[in-house]
């Protein structure tokens, strides 16, 4: 899922400063699961902002809501009338949702979250990055553990000299070294021989380094 974090409340209050009628629109997908921008977080943030603005003597009228997936026009469309009555929308979706609403509606769409990474739930309240979305997956060769996302240095051919004796990473010590994890995992799978393959220098053009990415599936594109 896409993992995001709520911006500091001070920053949100500053963004909302010029507005008196705002829709707080959450997203019930990834950001709801990572407890950053679902229906519940919309309620909490709206209550906090109302309290702060009342304290400042500048009350704000907040409409609260959450859509199934803010990155799809179909789910945002039922909110059109309400959105058009606002001075601004505070989006509690990831950056994709903010972009999507901005493309569709001619009013300020403000981001309430900082979008962080593609991650998994380690335990309740803890999320970790496990995929970098680099566009060229090699997980079948590394035991399903991604060295691009989970090695701080994106190394492709084994650990760096900084791996600690206990198998943790020198850059983020509580985290295990990705290559130690890969080595152990391949051992359990009886696939350690695959470590003899040397990866060539990675072609990063499929990552962000090749510019904004786009995917087109011709057989699914409808004629206009």
């Amino acid at each position, binding site marked *: 899922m896409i993992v995001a974090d709520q911006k*500091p*409340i001070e920053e949100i209050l500053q963004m909302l400063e010029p507005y008196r009628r705002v829709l707080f629109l959450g997203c019930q997908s990834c950001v709801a699961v990572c407890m950053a921008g679902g229906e*519940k977080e919309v*309620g909490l943030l709206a209550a906090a902002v109302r*309290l702060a603005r*009342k304290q400042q003597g500048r009350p704000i009228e907040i409409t609260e809501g959450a859509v199934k997936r803010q990155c799809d026009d179909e789910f945002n469309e039922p909110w059109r009338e309400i959105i058009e009555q606002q001075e601004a929308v505070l989006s509690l979706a990831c950056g994709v949702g903010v972009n999507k609403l901005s493309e569709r509606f001619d009013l300020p769409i403000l981001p309430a979250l900082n979008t962080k990474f593609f991650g998994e739930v380690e335990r309740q309240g803890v999320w970790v990055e496990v995929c970098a979305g680099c566009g060229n997956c090699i997980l079948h060769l590394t035991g399903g553990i991604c060295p691009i996302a989970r090695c701080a240095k994106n190394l492709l051919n084994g650990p760096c000299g900084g791996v600690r004796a206990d198998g943790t990473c020198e850059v983020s010590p509580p985290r295990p070294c990705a290559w130690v994890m890969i080595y152990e995992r391949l051992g359990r799978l009886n696939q350690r021989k695959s470590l003899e393959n040397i990866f060539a220098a990675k072609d990063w053009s499929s990552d962000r380094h090749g510019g904004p990415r786009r995917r087109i599936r011709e057989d699914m594109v409808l004629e206009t």
Partner: protein
Amino acid sequence: MTDGEPKIVAFCCHYCAFAAADLAGVLRLKYPPNVYIIRLPCTGKLDALYLLKAFEAGADGVMVAGCLEGSCHFISGNLRAKKRVAAVKDLLAKLGIEPERLEFFHLSSAQGDRFAQIAREMTERIRNLSPSPSPQEGEAGVRSVEKEQL
């Protein structure tokens, strides 16, 4: 704040604080009548939203009362609630509201006198602060939150 008396909303655990409040009544102990008790099955049920809504509805102070450490009926509900209360206290400070308006207390069902003491302490503490961060007309605000929870 009506007639100078602060409104306090008390979220009480069914197994300790609520029973302690009951005991305080049975023992005919005096404590301020402006403490509105909302019973929770365990303080682990407490959500940060309840606390903010209470302030929004016009509460001058909010107290959460859960079991003594190690005595939670559901093992760790009181400790979880304590963490949530700490997080909301931090948030209140950032919103420009005195964090002292919110407090977590531990007590057992046998401590009727302690409940009355906490209610008096909390009332006194809030009385020394400025009025409600979110004043409401009459008492409707606090009552509606109470109704919502029940």
